[in-house]
């Protein structure tokens, strides 16, 4: 006997739908179990893959399907999850006029591979992710901070970093004031 439909409330997770088409099929055939999800939300398609499959997938998409432009690379912090960081790669193909995302999750302290081997654009973007989240990328040509000073302690976009928090020692030493607040 079918269950009573529950009253509609706000969804508790992203109400994404399955993304069907040639591209998910091709990627599924090539990556098998390493492709965890191909989904669509507000008409935007994305792949979720295992952490070790990200760079091979981006390279595959560039070589085989002509996703030749890395639009953006960023991270999202979910402190309560076991794999707390979600890495998001936004790709665009000029020939297909299509934009997709590739996502993966990594635990704190894990060093994912750099995307600079596939897209040079990733250089500064990965430096910014390191600066803001403290995620280091293996094989990056110049893994250092980009927006904050090199001696700064802390990574501001981590959720535990407060909105008014700052590196007071750095501020005292370099600006000669007690606090920037």
């Amino acid at each position, binding site marked *: 006997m079918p269950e009573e439909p529950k009253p509609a409330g*706000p*969804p*508790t*997770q*992203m*109400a*994404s739908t399955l993304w069907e088409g040639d591209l998910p099929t091709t990627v599924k055939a090539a990556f098998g179990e390493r492709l965890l999800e191909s989904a669509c*939300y*507000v008409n*935007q398609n994305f792949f979720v893959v295992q952490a070790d499959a990200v760079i091979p997938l981006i390279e595959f998409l560039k070589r085989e399907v002509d996703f*030749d*432009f*890395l*639009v*953006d690379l*960023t991270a*999202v*912090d979910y402190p309560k999850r076991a794999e707390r960081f979600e890495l*998001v790669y*936004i790709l665009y193909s*000029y020939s297909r*006029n299509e*934009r997709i*995302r590739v996502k993966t999750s990594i635990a704190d302290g894990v060093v994912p591979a750099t995307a600079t081997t596939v*897209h*040079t*654009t990733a*250089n*500064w*973007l990965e430096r910014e992710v390191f600066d*803001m989240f403290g995620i280091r990328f293996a094989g990056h040509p110049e893994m250092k*901070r*980009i*927006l*904050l*000073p090199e001696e700064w302690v802390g990574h*501001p*976009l981590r959720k535990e*970093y407060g*909105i008014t928090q700052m590196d007071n020692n750095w501020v005292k030493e370099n600006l000669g004031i007690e606090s920037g607040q």
Partner: protein
Amino acid sequence: MSTAETFLDSSELVLNMGPQHPSTHGVLRVILKLDGEKVIGTECVIGYLHRGVEKIGENRTYVMFAPYVDRMDYISAVSNGLGYCLAVEQLGGYVAPPRAQTVRVILTELNRIASHLLWLGTHALDVGAITPLFYTMREREEVLKIFENYCGARLTTHAFRIGGLQYELYDGFEDQVRVFCERMLTKLDEYEELLTGNRIWVNRLTGVGIINAADCKRYGVTGPLMRAAGVAADLRKLQPYSGYEQYDFDIPTRVNGDSFDRYVIRMEEIRQSVRILRQAVERIPTGPVMAKVAKVLKPAIGEAYVSVEAPKGELGYFIVSDGSLHPYRMRVRPPSFLNLQALTEMCKGALVADVVAIIGTLDIVLGEVDR
């Protein structure tokens, strides 16, 4: 020929340019490695204007954050606002009414013209021509007056609201835009007379800071730089938003990808913006300017990336919602940041005096690079 090193050719000079340097239009520090007059390496040091806009976004409600985006690329605040509003609307499932969409197009195109005008004036000043600055400032003033009449602010306008517009148009808006369009075209001819055929101007910019289409893709370069390299990439055509598909306009492209081509592209883009303005101003639909948007804005759990063609390139917002009042993650994809990354590539082998011209035609705004 002797290959022995003399003291003259054995040394490299490291020159520090900025952060306080007039040609960087803000606080950009470029460390140049020079061999005589030749640039053999560059490194950008940025972050002097970092205000943590993305962190602020996580600590404000969706509505409260809207004015902050104006302070990134403060030269084209309207484009920033449009991108942000479209992103939140996509996430929350709202659509701005047709009247609001058309007014948005008009204000955004006016802002594109203002941005390109300011670029032209300051860039000309950088490479030694003082006159164009006064001319372009004069025309830009007309645009700022329209903004001021419409929403009270000239620079950081906060012109749009999530779901449409806050203000109705004022009386005489259409006429003011029509007059401006007319005036702009004649003034553009004046600029071109001053510059396009000017031998000093042409020689100063031709062949300087070349970047080809393949390198643009490699470095994530977008906007006028990419179009100057021959790629007809413009999000207004590729992925139309806010009703851009209704207007008849062209995407100018050039082939060389040098500083002179970037100048020509921007001049042509002003003409195309005027074309859009003339069409849009004649067909502003009647009706409401605001969609029905919840007073307490809480988009469902989810994420969206929405981008617009800002005067500098692709400006994108990647917003993650956890169903609460505040965005869970507010990522901005700044065109200036990624365009600046290509500076190293463009400066390879250039003369030290050309670095100023190259930074100039990159058209970066440090407020957006550093956020």
